[in-house]
């Protein structure tokens, strides 16, 4: 009898182990299928082209909605649903010619009425709206009408030369108001489904106006718990494209199976100093901190040396708007830093906290490196990690902090980048205030001449640097791993996953 029991036990246990061992001989993606899976670590949430703000949502919707103009991967703004634009001499009326032969995903044709409806909705001008602009940058729009020649005329309340890049706002069918649940656009892919916590699925738009595009039949944006979970899936083949990797993780990938692509992100990573709290309200202290930081070391610790060093509030990727004469202003100089500290009365240093969002490894690592560098001038930086929701509420909105590390908006509009340094701006979380800057920022949208405007931007950057308003660190490189079974993927210097050019390798 007892032999029977022993046998039964052994068999049962062995069976259990065997079944476990076989665990999910789950299927790997078929080599020949004309699909691609993109790994994302941010849960998507908003699919309305006018209320979408979060970068993680925008980069998906880039494939679904299109605006009158559209960015390419080199940062150029090209005509899209408009074939051209005419801007009045005083920059108060923009007139767009609408492209013909474009169909919405629901089969209807794009016409001027759809554009008027969409832009009005974005600017909060529909009768059903209370006047609050959904796309706040379009708030200056006073009216959108169809001109006699069939073109669309956008009239502004006051002249602005800085509005062009917001006409990338998605165009939807006239009268349509169900974009959150069932997005309808003109983009290369149609929205198929969203399963919270799992995926967003897009399928090919057979009637796309750019003939021959897109190549793929289906694109899945798959939600991964974090970067490491995504990497595991990438290595296993259940994800084909995985953006926003760090260099140390990339080095673990099999180079025969993945191409590693990179591009500047046009982001500004900043060691933000709250200008309203002691002792950071003292210019000399802010300068001392700027001189004490070694940006090269920070870049080598956090991004393996791949990023672009920053001296001011704008990335060199912004081209002529960036002022190259500011390069190297704050190269590390410990003697100068120490003497500035002494001048300000802090020769023995001080204690200060740095509140960083724990979900961004790069910012946490940066804070750790900063803490060790600032010791040299006697500053004891205490790192406090908080979750993203807390950071947004306490640091960004509440401004209840001393210092923090964060990356600021990736935008090709120079005005967007600098808008937050106006003393009354919602985004001015460093509590910076300089009436000179306020004046210049008010003047810029009224300046039609490009060279003149560029000079004004340079002046603003010069003032921000002179005031050492914060410590600008790096423009972190965006690194994306792409399976060798795909080609045609481009890393955009902004939050975009453009899948329209992606195709199977060798096809």
């Amino acid at each position: 009898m007892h032999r029977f029991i022993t046998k039964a036990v052994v068999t049962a246990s062995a069976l259990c182990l065997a079944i476990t061992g076989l665990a999910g001989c789950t299927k790997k993606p078929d080599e020949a299928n004309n699909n691609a899976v993109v790994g994302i670590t941010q849960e998507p949430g908003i699919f309305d082209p006018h209320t979408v703000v979060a970068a993680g949502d925008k980069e998906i919707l880039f494939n679904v909605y299109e605006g009158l103009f559209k960015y390419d991967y080199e940062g150029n703004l090209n005509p899209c649903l408009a074939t051209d634009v005419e801007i009045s001499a005083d920059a108060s009326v923009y007139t767009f010619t609408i492209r013909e032969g474009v169909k919405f995903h629901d089969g209807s044709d794009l016409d001027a009425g759809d554009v008027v409806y969409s832009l009005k909705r974005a600017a909060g001008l529909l009768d059903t709206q209370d006047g609050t602009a959904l796309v706040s940058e379009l708030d200056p729009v006073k009216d959108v009408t169809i001109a006699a020649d069939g073109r669309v005329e956008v009239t502004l309340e006051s002249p602005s030369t800085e509005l062009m890049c917001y006409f990338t706002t998605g165009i939807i069918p006239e009268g349509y108001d169900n974009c959150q649940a069932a997005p309808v656009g003109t983009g290369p892919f149609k929205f198929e489904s969203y399963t919270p916590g799992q995926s967003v699925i897009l399928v090919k738009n057979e009637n796309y106006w750019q003939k021959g595009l897109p190549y793929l039949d289906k694109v899945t944006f798959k939600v991964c718990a974090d970067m490491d979970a995504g990497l595991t899936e990438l290595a296993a083949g259940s994800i084909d494209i995985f953006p926003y990797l760090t260099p140390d993780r990339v080095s673990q990938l099999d180079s025969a199976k993945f191409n590693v692509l990179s591009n500047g992100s046009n982001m500004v990573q900043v060691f933000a100093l709250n200008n309203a709290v002691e002792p950071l309200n003292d210019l000399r202290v802010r300068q001392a901190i700027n001189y004490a930081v070694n940006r090269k070391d920070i870049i080598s610790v956090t991004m393996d040396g791949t990023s672009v060093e920053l001296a001011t509030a704008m990335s060199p990727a912004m081209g002529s708007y960036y002022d190259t004469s500011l390069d190297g202003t704050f190269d590390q100089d410990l003697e100068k830093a120490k003497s500035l500290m002494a001048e300000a009365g802090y020769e023995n240093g001080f204690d200060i906290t740095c509140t960083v969002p724990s979900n961004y490894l790069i910012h946490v690592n940066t804070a750790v490196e900063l803490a060790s560098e600032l010791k040299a001038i006697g500053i004891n930086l205490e790192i406090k990690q908080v979750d993203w929701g807390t950071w947004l509420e306490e640091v960004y909105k509440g401004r209840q902090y001393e210092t923090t590390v964060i990356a600021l908006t990736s935008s090709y509009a120079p005005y967007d980048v600098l808008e937050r340094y106006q003393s009354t701006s919602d985004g001015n979380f460093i509590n910076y205030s300089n009436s000179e800057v306020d004046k210049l920022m008010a003047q810029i949208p009224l300046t039609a001449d490009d060279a003149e405007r560029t000079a004004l931007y340079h002046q603003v950057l010069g003032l921000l640097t002179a005031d050492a308003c914060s410590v600008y660190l790096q423009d972190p490189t965006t690194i994306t791993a792409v399976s060798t079974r795909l080609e045609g993927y481009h890393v955009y210097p902004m939050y975009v996953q453009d899948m329209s050019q992606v195709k199977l390798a060798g096809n």
Partner: protein
Amino acid sequence: MKSKARYFIGKFIELILTLFVVSLLVFAAFSIIPGDAARIMLGPNASEAQVNLLRAQMGLDKPLIARYGSWLLGIITFNPGTSYAFNMSVSELIGQRLPVTVGMSAIAMLMVIVISYPLAVVSARKPGRLGDQICSVIGHILFAIPPYAASLLLILLAGSVFSLITVGNYVSPSDDFIGYVGCLLLPSFAIALPKIAMSFKFLRSSIIEQRTSDYVRTSKSHGLSDLKILVRHVLPNSNVSSITIISIILSDILGGSLIVEQVFNLPGLGRLLLMAIDRRDFPLLSGIVFYLAFITVILYFLSDIAASLADPRIRLK
């Protein structure tokens, strides 16, 4: 009979009170932590006007106490409300995730019973023998391994060393049931391991205790075979305590699955719960917590009832 009814009613009131306290705790915790669902959804690029617009849409502009009140009312009428972040009903969201969590818990529980029961019976036959000692030592080791650590080891072994599985490749049961069970086996095993050890240890000592008691000796002297004694007397008597232990294990497994899901990148309730916290999604978070608490409390309630039926002495205590 009266004492039985009174006992059940008492337990039932206990159940309702526990659930109420849970809902209060979730509410209290939520009013303390900073963060705003609308702002988190929109990110730092949003203007104040955009945030306020969304807050109004979500109903976040109403005071928290009013929202709690309407939520509590909803729960009583079996309608936990709509998630802020997903704009979907909470029950639908939980329903979507249940196959993972329930499937994993069920498989893990099955593994615990199938492995620990026979092992305990054999081990307890001759305590102190080499086989028994090996089992006990292994049991002690397994007992000390937390499920997330076991998960990582299993992923390393099965995924990287033997390339048996694709981690995180979840298959929905409606698409392919075998694949669904397949992708849950490894995580279930990770959760089950320490529980196997726990249940083994407990059953073994309980059987040994019964075997050394007087009635077994008497039965033996009556000439009953070992197997008959085991099946007729020893196991039923150990059962009363195993009901309790199994309900404890089951609720532990449920909790463990929430963590293991993260490691295996499975779309279960655990990830939904973390997402709800990250995004300050009060209806969703309270819905999930309440749901889990409900299951746990019900489990204990049922096990109390079952134990009291199996052993009437419990009711009298």
